[in-house]
């Protein structure tokens, strides 16, 4: 019932016109509050998951820390709100959170009709299938008649129906509210297959299933799932900071600047590095409206994109960067010049 509450709350907030989010005020609200409110998942290893002490880790969490660092110069000024797939957009629309960094797929409907906009891509993913090895299934084409665990209200739910229709197969959906429930159902045999983004499947297999070796991810990738942070429309300054925070993480990796060598790099005579780290040009204050040392602070406190990947994604079993590598190394990660 929680999400009804949230939706009704959002509806009434909109009806009364509470000024939680008026044009240009998101950034002001964040600054006067003294912290960034970031919506994350209810627990997905590698992306956003809380440990027993309530400390959040993951690549989506790290992005929020980097954004908070750009605004406040302090990576600890973030409050995380765990949200289910169904709650996430309403929470952002209503001003409950400032940024949604929750393995959310960028689609035209979401970008153009929800009053939201995507600030970039922090992980290129694709939808796959996780099955028990004992079923002897080798290809998704053999899944005709299977019961499939899905999370309601996701793009994967729609891709799944498309894929089965396109291949003239039928399936029975088993609706699982969270990743946890889906993993449990797969383990108990209530569903034969679990489908979501392949990174999510890897994370689930590594952290939720008792015997990871008993499960296999099928080779088919049935969709494009570019995952990235989302902000509410109406505050272009905040949107720009959110967008360029993502690019700064990539640009620094390209320049070879990381959390360990950043102090040394700040003394570099390379004009590109000097500009990036705020030694010259004052891009931060003059162009973006944040501290000149914003990139330096982000790298010092959070690290560059490569470090985040190493720290968060590699442990869930995706050690090859693939499309998520820098463009210079054959991947898709490309940042426009920071100058």
């Amino acid at each position, binding site marked *: 019932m929680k999400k009804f509450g949230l939706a009704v709350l*959002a509806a009434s907030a909109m*009806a009364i*016109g509470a000024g939680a989010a008026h044009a240009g005020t998101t950034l002001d609200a964040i600054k006067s509050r003294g912290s960034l409110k970031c919506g994350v998942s209810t627990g997905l290893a590698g992306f956003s998951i809380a440990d027993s002490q309530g400390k959040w880790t993951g690549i989506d969490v790290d992005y929020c820390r980097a954004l908070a660092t750009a605004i406040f110069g302090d990576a600890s000024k973030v409050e995380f709100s765990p949200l289910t797939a169904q709650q996430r957009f309403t929470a952002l629309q209503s001003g409950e959170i400032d940024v949604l960094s929750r393995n959310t797929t960028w689609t035209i409907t979401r970008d153009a009709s929800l009053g939201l906009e995507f600030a970039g891509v922090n992980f290129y993913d694709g939808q796959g299938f996780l099955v028990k090895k004992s079923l002897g299934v080798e290809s998704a084409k053999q899944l005709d*008649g*299977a019961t499939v665990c899905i999370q*309601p209200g996701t793009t994967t739910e729609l891709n799944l129906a498309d894929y089965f229709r396109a291949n003239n197969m039928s399936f029975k*959906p088993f609706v699982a509210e969270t990743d946890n429930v889906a993993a449990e159902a797969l383990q*108990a045999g209530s569903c*034969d297959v679990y489908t979501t983004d392949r990174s999510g499947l890897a994370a689930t297999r590594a952290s939720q299933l008792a015997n990871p070796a008993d499960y296999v991810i099928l080779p088919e990738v049935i969709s494009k799932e570019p995952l990235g942070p989302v902000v509410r429309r109406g505050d272009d300054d905040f949107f720009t900071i959110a967008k360029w925070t993502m690019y700064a993480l990539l640009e620094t990796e390209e320049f070879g600047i990381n959390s360990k060598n950043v102090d040394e790099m700040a003394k570099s005579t390379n004009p590109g590095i000097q500009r990036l780290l705020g030694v010259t040009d004052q891009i931060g204050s003059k162009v973006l409206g944040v501290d000149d040392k914003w990139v330096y602070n982000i790298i010092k406190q959070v690290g560059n994109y490569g470090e985040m990947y190493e720290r968060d994604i590699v442990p869930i079993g995706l050690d090859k960067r693939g499309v998520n590598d820098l463009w210079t190394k054959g991947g898709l990660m490309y940042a426009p010049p920071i100058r």
Partner: protein
Amino acid sequence: MAGKTSQSEGASRTVSDVLHNETFRAILAQVILVGAVVLAAWYLVSNTLDNLAARQISTGFGYLTKNAGFEISDKFISVSAANSYGRALLAGLVNTLVVSLISIVLASLFGTIVGISRLSKNWLVAKLALTYVEGVRNIPLLLQLIFWWKVITAIAPQPRDALQILPEVFFSNRGLNFPLMSPDPVWGWVWLGLLVGIIGAVFIWRWANKVQARTGKRPGSIPLYLASIIGVPVLVWLVGGAPTGVDAPVLGRFSLTGGGSVSTALLAMIVGLTFYTSTFIAEIVRSGIQAVSHGQTEAGDALGLSRRQVLRLVVLPQALRVIIPPMTSQYLNITKNSSLGVAIGYQEIASITNTTLNQTGQAIEAIALMMVVYLSVSLTLSLLMNWYNHQIKLVER
């Protein structure tokens, strides 16, 4: 001059007269109240629309005709990913009605048995019923639903070693699979025949009432009613060529296919709603029976009626008058509580609304539509129960 003064005095007197008129004041107060309510509603709606437009969130009910693109697991009308959101929501509504109706029937039967057991002279039966009522009604329904769902998914066997509880009826952690008659156009006519048979039985009953009132002797008997209810559809079946093909569940690659099936979520919903609501119904039945004065029972005894006859002819008809109004509330509760299906993945209207809301982003329209649907269903149910209540109320001469 003088005339003018008196004229204006007269006018002001009329105005103050009107202002002090009781009827006028009463009407004025109502007009102001209605005006304020309309104004507030208009303000809320227009402000909402303005804010949505300012935030560039699309509005309107156009999304209902868009392609839904998701599948529904329990379906009692034909629906697929190729249908519209409107159709998907309709399937959700049907799912709500199905689970509510089944639970209402089962909870009424079971609740009545428990309620009568509470009054049993047998100590064990009475205490057992008391324990059941107090135990079950004091645990939140949501927990009970999750409990039943977990029990079924975790403890029931895998489809390949499904329990065969009746011939060709299998129980597994995917739910219940049972055989169905193979599809044949004749079956549609057989159902129609059943309907005709039932209507026929009602007419026989009315005719018997009339004859009894006139002559004091009641014609017809149970075989006559059965002949109407069972005989007509059987006759239709025979005329239609008596098809006997059975579509039984068989083990496929993944699970049991063919025949009919009920998912674990729907099973858990029926079990949870039935047990929970039956405790309240038991209490209503018990209080209804106790509300009938003991003198009535004694009078029945004095007339030489058997215990069963006293219960059926004297006590229950009077108890029903007390029972029906609170029973209506329980039926409404079942319908509304079925929305807890979202928690265990039963795709009723609330669950489908949630998915729709998330896929289209149109929270306000989706929630408003769901509220209208629940209101309509509840009011219809209320209307039916009130009509029934009117039928059985004491006829005063």
